[in-house]
């Protein structure tokens, strides 16, 4: 049973890291200046983002 749990967790880790790796390679754009090696700040909106933004009242 323990071996099965370990296999599932390791497979999950491989999937997560593989997906991240794929995203790094497949993204046409390099990250912006608000980004680091761990990703971008949540608030950073890239210029290619087409989805509507949440409206803010200044």
């Amino acid at each position, binding site marked *: 049973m*323990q*071996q099965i*749990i*370990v296999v599932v*967790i*390791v497979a999950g*880790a*491989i999937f*997560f*890291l593989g997906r*991240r790796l794929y995203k*790094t*390679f497949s993204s046409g754009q*390099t*990250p*912006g*200046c*608000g*980004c*680091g*090696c*761990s*990703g971008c*700040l949540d*608030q*950073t*909106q890239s*210029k290619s*983002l087409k989805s*509507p*933004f*949440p*409206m*803010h*009242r*200044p």
Partner: protein
Amino acid sequence: MKTALTIALAGNPNAGKTTLFNHLTGARQHVGNYPGVTVEQKEGCCLHKSKGLRVVDLPGTYSLTAYSVEELVARDFIINEKPDVVVDVVDASNLERNLYLSCQFLELGVPLIIALNMVDVAEKRGLAINTEELGQRLGVTVVPIIARTGKGVDELLDAVLRLSEATTTPQPAFLRYGSDVDETLADMREDLELLDELRAIYPQRWLGVKLLENDEQIVQKAQATSPEAAKRLLARCDEVANHLQHTLGIYPEAMIADHRYGYIKSVMHKGVVTRKFVGDRLYTSDRIDKVVTHRLLGPLIMALVLFALYTFTFSYSTVMVDWLASFFSLINTTIDGLLPDGPVKSMLISGVVDGMGGVMGFVPIIMFMFFGIAVLEDSGYLARVAFMMDRIFHFFGLHGSSVMPFIVSGGIAGGCAVPGVMATRTLRSPKERLATLLTVPFMNCGAKLPVLTLLIGTFFSAHQARYMFLATLLAWIVALCAAKLLRMTVLRGESTPFVMELPPYRFPTIKGLFIHTWERTWQYMKKAGTVILGISILIWAMMTYPGLSDQDLAHFDAARQQAEKTYTSGSEELNQALGKIDADQALMRLKHSYGGRIGVAFEQFSQYAGIDWRTNIALIGGFAAKEVIISTLGTAYSLGEVDSDDSTSLSDRLAKDSSWNPVKALAVMVFIMFYAPCFVTVVCIAKEAGSWKWAAFSMAFNTFFAFIMAVGVYQLGALIYL
């Protein structure tokens, strides 16, 4: 459905565009108190009087001539995207210089509003600006604002809505540039009319001015549109350039700039700006700079500031680091008590807690370091560091614009090479850019910081701040020497001049400091809890499987039976013998694992630098992310122990291990500081350099360079101390 209005925020660097953008959109884009923070445009939205506004924050520029990437990005957006309104954010305390860009917007004929920002700072400097009069003279609306507090922003948005609803189209302003240039522009008219495609996008006279300014993009476009007309136009430009050189000793672009400033002076005279103090009065910032950027005192103060930052970090974070170590130790003990022996328990203790937990344990140090960096950055001191380093950079064949990428990458330990690599976009010379791209990863980024802290804390605990200071100094020296080497060999060429603007000193706000500290600390924690956790689990699996063969297990069982036969039951000798057999089995299992085999294979080379097979596994893992070095060492030393749930910290385990000593620690530190950049940085280098060749070069060059240095340190240290 009605489309939202598009507002472009443009202006000089450090005029407060990003602050206004954040205020308008509620975003928390990074605002730096130095130029060049925004290299590409950012977008956000806001509502004003039930109207949706799409706000675009453009990079800071001084002009609209394509001299740099920022200028090109800003200009292309305004020309191609045609925003409904361009809001030119103008620093009221530097009005004359900021109006130079406004002047170019007027020449381009875009729908313009001037947001006169930082009017409070201008008032403190004794400047009173008559905004109505200024607006009338320029022919645009001028709205005084304080972007930091949001004062005047509503009025600004009212003006934006009014302008967007206006029925008249703004016409390009007609500026005179002196008889020679004006005559040339008149002569060029016929040929300019042949550039139909370009005239549909740009005002005709503006095209002529850009050709005279030798704007690369416009020259290329003109040549593509009508080669014959472009040839004649460029010949006319050369003619007037030679004439101006011969008669006045200046180029047309300087003549055009002089006349723009002349126009600005004429706009500002008589009642627009009133000065309470004399013009050449030294402001507080200038006074401080006299000392802080002094040729001799400046570097000394810089070293002291850096040393103080490290002392502050290590002195005040220790208690919290100890708390976290106790917390993770408690988790280990709890897991050990709750779960039966087996792979799940081993994975949780050796992989997750000793691996990822080891990285999390450094959060307090990272937090204190980031807080200190935020103080330096927000106050404006970091810009002074860049200014002082600029002098040194030229000596090493780098451009002044290279300073910021170095600082961002970890010039003061704690940055990140990825935004550092991005920041090289501001460099125009491809060779200078490549030299910077390839050497910024030598800086001590935030991921290397916990690794260095671990080794310094374990082997040089009495002088933590001093060693971290020396590590920073070494990173700078090595990066600059490597840059010089590259510029003398594969990237040979002249270094280009650079002028840097120093922003005024500002008191950092408590809120700003906490936001900056939290954002960076959160990034570190998020990475530890996601990527590092995933890698830790994989590395644990690599260091656990395939396990020992039945033959090996039988060998250890036989040894145990032999010991039980030889020694009396329950005796101390038997316990010692069994303990040794258990330790040998754990070590053999680790060495026999997939990870162990890779580590052993590399040991034949790494032994010259004193690096053992267990550290090799960590160093290979470090290519994924440098923090993985800690998590892998944590797992390796945890799995190599008889009691993996033992609550001893990694630092204590390394200190007790006979194969580790201060010389080896120094060699490992040197290797970690300079070997191949992490995977994400390598991808960024490939994308920015436009070729995987340079990314491969970066990995090979850095690793070879680091290995040579580590061997040197180890062999020399072994001769002297061991």
